[in-house]
């Protein structure tokens, strides 16, 4: 136990102090206040991998690490679509995942925000739209609010993408 405490003390707080990175500071503060305003301080996200190579998932994990610590802005990932405010989708939509994606979307309550993360989710990426095994990009299957470019998008880009979704006019 002492060693655990020692290790924790030694590493200290690595969560990027908001002031260290100008952009990130602005971004984080904006995100936090928007989440507070629109979602009473807590935004629940459900992830669906609709056919990704799992690279995008690694970066979502990274957004949860101690450096970015996306949870401090009130953003957290949930196991059920039933209480998810936002659906984050990665990968081109495979024909074998299409139904599962639609069902997850249907199970969500309003406002059903949808973010398509990564080049695959946006335009099927390297796997191509002209592919028998792919049903289409995410917006071919369900309505998409925001897209995040990158292969995979960095954790910062992900946080930015979530923010810009929240900043879109409601309705």
């Amino acid at each position, binding site marked *: 136990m002492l060693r655990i405490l020692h290790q924790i003390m030694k590493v200290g707080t690595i969560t990027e102090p908001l002031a260290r990175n100008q952009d990130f500071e602005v971004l984080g503060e904006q995100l936090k206040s928007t989440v507070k305003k629109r979602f009473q301080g807590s935004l629940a996200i459900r992830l*669906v991998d609709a056919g990704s190579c*799992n690279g995008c998932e690694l970066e979502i*994990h990274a957004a949860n690490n101690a450096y970015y610590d996306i949870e401090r802005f009130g953003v957290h*990932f949930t196991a059920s679509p039933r209480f998810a405010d936002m659906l984050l989708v990665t990968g081109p939509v495979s*024909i*074998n*995942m299409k139904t599962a994606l639609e069902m997850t979307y249907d199970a969500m309550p309003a406002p059903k925000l949808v973010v398509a993360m990564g080049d695959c989710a946006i335009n099927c990426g390297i796997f191509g739209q002209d592919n*028998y095994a792919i049903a289409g990009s995410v917006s071919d299957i369900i309505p998409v609010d925001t897209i995040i470019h990158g292969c995979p998008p960095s954790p910062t880009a992900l946080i930015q993408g979530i923010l810009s979704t929240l900043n879109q006019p409601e309705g």
Partner: protein
Amino acid sequence: MTTGLSNTWFAERLGDHGIHSQYLEDHHPAHMPCLEIRRLDWAHAAEEAKRLEMRLVGVWAAQAGYHDDQKQLYTYMAFAHPEHRHVILRTTVNIEKLEIPSISSHYISACRMERHIQDMFGITIQNIPDTRLWLKHEHWPEDATPLMHDFDGKISLSSDPNRADIDYDYVPCDSESVYEIPVGPVHAGIIEPGHFRFLAVGEKILNMEERLGYVHKGIEKTMQGRKVDNGLKLAGRVSGDSTVGHSWAFAQACEYAANISIPKRASYIRGILCERERIANHIGDIGAICNDAAFAFMHVQCSRLREDMARLHAQAFGHRLLMDTLKIGGVAYDLSAETCQQLIQQTRHIAAEVERLRDIYADTPSIQQRVIGAGTVNVNDAKDIGLLGYVGRASGHYPDERIEEAYAPYDDLDIPMPQGKLGGVSTRVWVRFEEIANASRMIIQLLETLPEGDIQSEWKAPQAGVSGFTAIESWRGEIAAWVRFGKDGLIDRYFVRDPSTINWLGLELAVRTVPVPDFPLVNKSFNCSYAGNDL
């Protein structure tokens, strides 16, 4: 080809048993030859391989290329022997009657790959012990055979409404005290999709069955007709967490086919990339395993180290996950003396941090109680299935292509083998800790002895019909890749077998009699790739 260099060991053994085989001249490299055998010897040859204690590497099929007699259809199987290395056998399928005998009675791991052949080519596998569909899900039109030339792979396949209600035929159980738990395809966490069907009695798992294929993206089909550079990009996204391993496998298969060797400096940099990928994934997984047993401290520490690595990767190689860092014939990025120093320093630092965390992990009773003895696979089963990578190494099965195949740069390195036997979660974690330490030493040695010179050889595509095969030890285990070229240097057929295809079978065994809540823990300790399996 200089037949003098050819590996004739297996051909001679087959000959001893009356199986005639013939070398294919348009296959490289000579030390991993491709032999044509008669169709009626197919299952017998597999039986011989088993008797010789070879492990099964893969089973696949390919139609002849566009340059060739297009109608011809071949099936292939590859085996590996620790000393005598890899050999591929090929036979011709009768196109009037698309049938081939199953080899699953000799190699159980062949079964899913044979089902894949059935799904993709419409070839009937005679006497296959499991006749169900695999990657082809029930809603597909019955006559869809995507890897045949006459199938239009450019149009998205629409579901057959008449088949929409057909369910996969899971192993049933009539007993009243057994209940079923369906899980997935969408799982609770941030992970890939797949379906698990549990049969449980009380707390304990009686049987767990995997149904995969949800992220099938038609990679084999869409690879056809690509230029090598573009193919490499795609290969690097077969499974994003093994992007270096898969890129290396694709690139080396192409380089073997074209008979070009890459500069020594480039091979060293590939080694550095691959070992860094190994460390990053092991660190991430150790944290995630501990997290599944509610030891969040380790998770936070490990994901911190992983992020440190990703940041240096972005700076040194232009990509946090090391995607697109290889080129056909070499690597995309050279290393300056300064970057070498940074990499050495960070590798040392991370290795030391991991050792400190390892002590804490070993001294924490709450996590030790959960991992020791959980989810075991015994040595016999591991050998029988041919488990790969750290999963094999934890269960007494030790194939490592860095040692056996000893491709550059590993021929210059001394590679210790962590030899586990108990085969549970704790052993798999132990192997991973050992591999982090070993990989760190290798990286530092490679960086300190980095040869001067080019980082890229000139690419010259082989003639149509020429094929190449390779086996690369990625962080998960052996990736086997076979490529055949078509006209104008375009890819004609690419077969790749991620280690997950085999290791998923180990998971099914490991979770028997395990309490249901321990499943995530055991699953994480395997961490098989869905994408790599589903292609």
